[in-house]
């Protein structure tokens, strides 16, 4: 079961957006402030409550963390009274939540479709931009006991990472991915007293001593090994390129394509040209990849989207435009230099 569509009306930065999603990899591209992370958080919240049977409005508040936990602050800002609506679809099953910009508590939100939404659980994982595993010891108990100002995605990812391995033998697909990751990061991940280590010939290396990119791969290894990423799961990954050596982008994209082939739906938000190009070059004909460009319409200043299965047809492409602008300026500088002798 995958997330098939998101509809947002007057929610955070969006006036109105309807986005059809692919069952494979969905890549969000766009300038800062075009709502890439917000879209992923909405979809993640919906997936998460399908398992926990929690309240969508409460989950949105914990994931977005509006000031004073006032849910109404998630309504697109305007001076008059207003109401937003968030709809997430799994085929014809719809979860809908709506609330006014005056709402301060979550129980004033109207939620429909929660019962049928919870009947088909979706395992999900949200990997935030900031790496958390190196700061993990004590964080979960602190988060559960104290009212600390952290978006819940940070506690959730640790919950997923701490899960014990699945019972039974590891299937061949997961085994292959785990071995590939082990080769790339030169070791396996172990956990002792809530602390993460990379175990290799040198012994146990604390995550705090590892490059942040390797910690990210370690997290991916754990999620595959413990079955958080398994057939039917959904992976959300915000800016996977952050602190990762570009040489590792290729292997990383290969792993994401493999996960997609294992029927894991993937959502990525990226600002990186190499990530996009690796995906364009490595995807095979049978792979299911959709590129979603989020942009502000020049006339209305509202966020719009354009979706395509072909990277080359992505428009507008904020990342490529930046590189082309560099090319333009580099050529001009060279021509000026040659004109000046």
């Amino acid at each position, binding site marked *: 079961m995958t997330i098939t569509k998101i509809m947002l009306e007057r929610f955070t930065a969006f006036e109105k957006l309807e986005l059809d999603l692919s069952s494979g990899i969905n890549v969000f591209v766009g300038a800062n402030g075009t709502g890439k992370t917000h879209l992923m958080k909405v979809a993640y919240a919906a997936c998460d409550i399908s398992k926990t049977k929690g309240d969508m409005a409460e989950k949105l508040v914990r994931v977005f963390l509006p000031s004073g936990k006032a849910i109404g602050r998630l309504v697109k800002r305007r001076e008059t009274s207003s109401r937003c609506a968030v709809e997430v679809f799994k085929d014809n099953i719809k979860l809908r939540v709506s609330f006014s910009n005056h709402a301060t508590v979550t129980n004033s939100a109207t939620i429909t479709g929660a019962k049928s939404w919870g009947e088909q659980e979706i395992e999900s994982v949200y990997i935030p931009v900031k790496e958390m595993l190196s700061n993990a010891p004590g964080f979960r108990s602190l988060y559960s006991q104290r009212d600390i100002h952290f978006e819940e995605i940070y506690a959730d990812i640790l919950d997923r990472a701490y899960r014990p391995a699945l019972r039974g033998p590891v299937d061949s697909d997961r085994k292959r991915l785990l071995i590939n990751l082990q080769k790339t990061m030169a070791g396996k991940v172990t956990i002792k007293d809530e602390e993460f280590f990379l175990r290799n010939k040198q012994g146990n290396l604390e995550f705090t001593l590892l490059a942040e990119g390797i910690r990210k791969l370690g997290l991916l290894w754990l999620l595959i090994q413990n079955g958080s990423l398994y057939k039917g799961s959904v992976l959300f990954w915000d800016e996977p390129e952050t602190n990762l050596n570009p040489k590792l982008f290729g292997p990383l994209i290969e792993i994401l394509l493999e996960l997609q082939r294992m029927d894991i739906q993937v959502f990525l938000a990226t600002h990186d*040209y190499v990530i996009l*190009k690796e995906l364009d070059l490595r995807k095979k004909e049978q792979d299911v990849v959709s590129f979603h460009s989020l942009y502000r319409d020049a006339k209305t200043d509202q966020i719009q989207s354009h979706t395509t299965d*072909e*990277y*080359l*047809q992505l*428009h507008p492409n904020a990342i*490529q435009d930046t*590189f*082309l602008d*560099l*090319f*333009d300026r*580099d*050529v*001009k500088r*060279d*021509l*000026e230099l*040659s004109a000046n002798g």
Partner: protein
Amino acid sequence: MDEKEIRHLTESGFEITVPTENSFRFSENSAYQRLSGLGLKEMDIGWWDTANNKLILIELKGIEIWQGFDKAKDSAHKYLVEALNGKVTDVLLMLAAVWVKTGIGKEIGTDLPNHTHQYRGDGSIKLIFLIDTPPSRQSLLLPVKDAINKAIAGRVRLFGINHVTLINFDVARKMGLPVERRA
């Protein structure tokens, strides 16, 4: 191989060496020469690659590519995309004319290797632009290549071509193209 059997083309600071029998230049073809004044563009050289069963067409470009570029008005990548795509379109039209045997197509075909007289199937044509690129700009060629292909994808796919290739000299050598630098 006898020197007469080898064609050397020196252009824009590069030299291409290919067998005469399998190669051609539109610019040397009398039918093309009559049309060039009507705005029909060409690419520098083409040859039939017998090892890979492909028609390879290549355009060599040095600094002179920027001669018509007005840096005050144009953007460099748009200028390049337009210039190169015009060549691609016209060259493919000429090949199509050869294949369907229009009157002028037959004339153009007389100078082309036999293998190119009919369409040889999807993936049998490779279009390459070799641009002399300073080291500082080499990493920026890939987005330009994407921009070219974005603009022309529909047209080249009609001819079974997935994408047009835009490369610098180092990549050309890695690809095994018969090209050398010349002063």
